[in-house]
């Protein structure tokens, strides 16, 4: 029997959903009629009307929220009280960074850094060195971890994805089965995958068991992947490589399939070997797909969230910036500071993406563009 309490709780929500849909339908009808009355052609009016719900959704849920987060980044806001304008205070706190010179290796970082600043980077050179510290040290430690992760994992992941795509492009038995198997990771729930990795990286996990001869000879003690500050980043990169077998490989495989065979035949006639064909035919022809994968993978790596939520790291390592932003917003209820962090991350992502785009003229080959120039 239906629970009347649950019905009373959820029915109004369902009714609201239906009413909103009907409301949008009515507005679309009115807009369509108005356009026709204004003399706009039927086809154009239909197109504009059909795109309108999406446009409204984009303005309300994207443009407005992006604008609101920019505004909130200049405020002190805890969700429940009205935002209080603080100008650049949040950004000033985030960029409150100090630099200190070490006169000896034994000197404490705290002795050479500004008050209330904690070490982010300490470099010892000879008998001295230098230290960089910040007031928002957890943000910069997390930024360091996130950037290093993105810079290291993305190229390795792309190379792996390319290797997998090349393998899947061979004429081997059960090719369909292999392709399904290699795509499987992309459809697995991220949380389940992360819990599995956490178990595999535990001290008695499968990874330490497999690498037993190596660590037994070197340190004598099984690595503690997520609690050792030196090993946390390599562990995350290994986890990140999981994505090699997924959408990236499929895109590159599609790119490989799209390379005209006559190019390889021409290369054969010219006496090119396998490496030469790969270097001078496959890579240039695949470069648009590689470029697309590079951009999307870099953005995805910088926006990593789930790993931070499910795998705890030592304070000195930091966490992934998106997870830190979430904590700042929903644990500390510092929506203003969280918004400022989000905007700094956005600017860094934009800068890196722009850099990749700028570099594309050097290494990405667009056949159509060449033909146009010719």
């Amino acid at each position, binding site marked *: 029997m239906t629970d*009347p*309490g*649950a*019905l*009373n*709780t959820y*029915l*109004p929500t*369902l*009714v609201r959903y*239906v*009413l909103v849909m*009907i409301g949008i339908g009515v507005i679309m009808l009115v807009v369509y009629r108005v356009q026709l009355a204004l003399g706009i052609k039927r086809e154009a009016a239909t197109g504009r009307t059909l795109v309108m719900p999406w446009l409204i959704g984009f303005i309300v849920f994207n443009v407005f929220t992006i604008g609101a987060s920019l505004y909130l980044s200049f405020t002190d806001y*805890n*969700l*429940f*009280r009205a935002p209080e304008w603080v100008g650049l205070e949040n950004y000033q706190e985030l960029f409150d960074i100090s630099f200190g010179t070490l006169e000896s290796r034994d000197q*404490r*970082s*705290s002795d050479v850094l500004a*008050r*209330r600043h*904690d070490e982010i980077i300490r470099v010892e050179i000879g008998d001295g060195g230098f230290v960089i510290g910040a007031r928002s040290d*957890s943000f910069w430690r997390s930024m360091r971890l996130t950037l290093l992760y993105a810079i290291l994992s993305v190229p390795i992941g792309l190379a792996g994805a390319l290797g997998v795509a090349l393998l899947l492009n061979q004429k081997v038995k059960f090719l369909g089965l292999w392709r399904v198997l290699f795509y499987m990771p992309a459809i697995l729930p991220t949380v389940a995958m992360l819990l599995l990795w956490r178990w595999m990286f*535990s*001290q*008695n996990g499968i990874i330490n068991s497999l690498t037993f001869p190596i660590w037994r000879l070197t340190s004598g003690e099984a690595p*503690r992947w997520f*609690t050792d500050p030196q090993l946390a980043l390599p562990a995350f990169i290994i986890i990140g490589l999981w994505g090699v077998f997924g959408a990236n490989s499929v895109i590159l495989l599609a790119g490989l399939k799209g390379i005209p065979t006559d190019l390889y035949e021409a290369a054969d006639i010219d006496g090119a070997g396998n490496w030469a064909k790969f270097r001078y035919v496959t890579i240039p022809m695949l470069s648009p797909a590689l470029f697309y994968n590079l951009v999307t993978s870099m953005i995805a790596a910088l926006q990593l969230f789930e790993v931070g939520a499910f795998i705890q790291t*030592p*304070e*000195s390592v930091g966490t992934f910036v998106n997870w830190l932003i979430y904590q700042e917003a*929903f*644990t*500390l*209820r*510092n929506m203003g500071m969280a918004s400022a962090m989000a905007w700094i991350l956005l600017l860094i992502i934009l800068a890196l993406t722009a850099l990749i785009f700028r570099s594309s003229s050097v290494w990405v080959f667009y056949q159509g563009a060449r033909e146009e120039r010719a």
Partner: protein
Amino acid sequence: MKSRFIILTIALLLSALSPVVAQDVPTITIATWAGVDEAAEFQEIIDEINANTTEYQIVHQPTPAEYYTVVQTQLAAPGTGADMYWMDQDNMALKADGVFMDLSECLANSEPGTAGDLSDYYPGILAVNEYEGGVYGLPWIAQPVVTFYNKALFDAAGLEYPSPDWTWDDFIEYATALTQDTDGDGEIDQWGYTATDWPPPYIWIWQAGGELISEDFSSAPVDSPEFLEGLEFWLNNAYNPEMSPSAEIIAEQGFSEMFRAGQIAMFMGGAADDLDRVEGLDVGVVRVPGHPETGSHTTFAWNASTVINASSPLAQENPQLLCDALVAITEGIHNWKIVSPRISQATVEHLVAAEPRKEASAEAILEAAQDMRALPVFGNFAEFGTIFWTEFANPLLNDETDLTPEELAAEIRPELEDTLP
């Protein structure tokens, strides 16, 4: 044709709404973090209340995943959330943001000896719910930290069991003596004690006479000698190879799991924990050790309350009805969860009736409850707590700072005080 279709659609929607509109008895919703088992037990309490009233019907909305994110987003959008929520002590800080209903007026005429009688609550626990003269939640649990000890390991070491008047010195003596290499392979495989950042340092700080925050919330005297004495005791016990396993071993083998596996002799946990009924273990319970000079056995109490959403339509229309339902729910929980935060219910009989499996440890738990204290929660407590843990306590505990506790305390104090109201 089109207009007929529209009229028909509206008529259908209105008929769908009719059960809601026609209903005479208001529905009161309560959101909790309860998981499957806890929710099933709680539902029994709600069913009983619903069966005995014609004034309202309560509907439970368990939200075990990301509970506080859901609660905050609902509270931030007035009128969209449940009528009541469970809140733990840390999140009672929201009392300062005007999102909870002030209960002082609607509870003013409560019957003495009921859950609505505010004078029956432990004052320190009730204080978590108070703000500027108002009361914003009814506590339903106050769980003091107690010591669970493995009797077999004490027997094997020829040691007497800890007595209620034991001190820090006794504790260290026991913990050191019980840390042993039992199989003779040269490696320690049994420890006297285990600690991470749990149990919290406040226990020892309060016992030594220190305070995290002054009573009037004007200062955070973390650099006082009393505070530092308690903090040092906490720092010296955790990960100390002479008495407790390292952070890595704990991370690997599990914190309380090591006690369950018989590898740890003493564990400090919440009174409601099931460590005293682990199959195959004979476990005793005693209050936490006391300060050797002050004689204080003050302990920390984790506590939680139920609050009323101030923006709920019912809170505007009929606050007394919500209050009555809150009292009924809280009364039910006081007979279900241990330890009840009410002074009149601090009896062995009541505790055992609520949780018969705690019969053997009931006296020790109630003894601990007499000395329990709650955290001094204020509006900005989340930020205070984060600074305290991430920039002070954890760096000291994990050797991630080159400063001494005294130096770091002096440095962190202004930062902590910046967050005070």
